[in-house]
């Protein structure tokens, strides 16, 4: 099976020294891939590079067997990639319904109602909040709005940057369940996570990013079981 997203030798940054250096990474269709690593390792930069928000110095990014390295952000949504940034990921003064609606503008779905219905089935909590400004919601609900907005463009690939940052443990479980639910409807997910242990548990594949380089890859379970990874990145203890 060929990869949906394939990154080869990617070196990118923000104009100064490159932040990520020679990354190789494949994401198979209908899987959840998790990137973990210490703060400042370049995890967000990697996601942003896929989304054309950094300066790419070298390497290639292919999506669906098509080279997307030079494409602009606005061109990526229509071909089936959507992203949720790490922070400021909802339009706070727009209502929840409007947030979802904005998600359809770049890639108008054939049946807007049906897509919205599917998103609301995934995130039933939002149904009662549709008329409320997104800025008035709790952190977990905002994360749902943000993911919902991204899903409204019916992406094949969803990029999530730390979807559980700052959430309570209870909400954390819910978000991970939702991510599995999103995978179940056929969307491929590449996400960055700080809650590495829980994330790897649901991941089909994990990547450890250190200092801008891909330190180690494997299935979620392999990484959880790896002594080295456990000691350095999962805070010791057993899985």
């Amino acid at each position, binding site marked *: 099976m060929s990869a949906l997203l394939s990154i080869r030798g990617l070196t990118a940054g923000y104009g100064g020294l490159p932040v990520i250096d020679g990354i190789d990474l494949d994401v198979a269709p209908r899987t959840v891939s998790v990137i973990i690593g210490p703060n400042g390792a370049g995890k967000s930069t990697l996601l942003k590079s896929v*989304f054309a*928000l950094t300066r790419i110095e070298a390497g290639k990014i292919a999506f669906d067997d098509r080279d997307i390295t030079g494409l602009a*952000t*606005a061109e*990526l*949504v*229509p071909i089936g990639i959507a*992203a949720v*940034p790490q922070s*400021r*990921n*909802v*339009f*706070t*003064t*727009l209502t929840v319904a*409007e947030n979802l*609606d*904005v*998600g359809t*503008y*770049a*890639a108008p779905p054939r049946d807007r109602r049906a897509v919205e219905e599917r998103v609301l089935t995934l995130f039933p909590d939002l149904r009662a909040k549709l008329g409320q400004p997104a800025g008035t919601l709790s952190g977990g609900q905002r994360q749902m709005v943000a993911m919902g*907005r*991204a899903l409204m*463009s019916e992406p094949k690939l969803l990029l999530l940057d730390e979807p559980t940052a700052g959430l309570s443990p209870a909400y954390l479980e819910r978000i991970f369940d939702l991510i599995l639910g999103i995978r179940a409807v056929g969307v491929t997910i590449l996400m960055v996570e700080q809650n590495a242990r829980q994330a790897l548990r649901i991941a089909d594949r994990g990547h450890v990013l250190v200092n801008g380089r891909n330190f180690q890859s494997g299935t979620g379970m392999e990484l959880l079981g790896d002594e080295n990874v456990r000691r350095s990145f999962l805070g010791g203890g057993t899985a």
Partner: protein
Amino acid sequence: MIEFVNFYLIPAFTLGAIYALGAVGISMIFGILRFAHFAHGDVMTLGAYGTLTAVWLIPLPPLLLLPFGIALAIVATLAVDRMFYRPLRKLATIYTVISSFGVALIFRSLAQLFWGAQNEVYVPGVQRPLVFFDTIRVSALHIEAILIIIVIALTLHVFLTRSRLGRSMRAVSDEPELAAVSGLDTDRVIRWTWIIGASLAAIAGTLAGLDTDVHPNLGWNLLLPMFAASILGGIGKPMGALAGGMVIGLAEELSAYPWLGDGPLISPSYKTAVAFFIMVALLIFKPQGLFKGRLL
């Protein structure tokens, strides 16, 4: 009492409508391009002259010839955005502020060059006011101004909340990076911001010209109260700016009413000062304005 209505309240609504129409554009530009557009008053001036030129050529009432003023204002703003503002977008926005400051001068000198420095009127002679209930005397212009502002307020509200473009504009104003990540066409949003802002400015300029007369400093003289109105309404909140414009207009006109004693409360020559002091008070106590806009 009736004197208050005739000579203070109704003119105050007209002035408020002029400020409101200008302030909407300033507030939208604030929200989406994130800078204080110092040339906005002079966009109004160009709009007023555009309408004036049409009045010279076509025998129709000025308000029906507004499309000419609007067209001139749109062309002018899109041109300066393209030539002068866009190349500076990567830099700190203060450079764009400085640039717009220079554009104000460019627009004004162009107006003087093409139309001269003298005062012009749209329709010569004194317009007879309409009389209602034998007591309320209103000039047709004041009624028209109030109708225009009501229609525009409703249209704008529907546009911003219901249309795709309106929602995109609010989204870009709210979180520009997220809007880009969502795949919104930011350039298109910016273009429409200028088109709408310029159109409303041209209407405001023409109303101001009808209210008094048209001259090259017409818009520049209104800039300060319009800034005050957009801060009052909360930056990036066009509907707030509309309300803010009405409030500033009312405050300025009504400050000249003899509330205490016989003389005007504040001498009419200091009318503009009222707007300034409202602005200063806002900056000290409530810089996000009355409707919880954001800070630049």
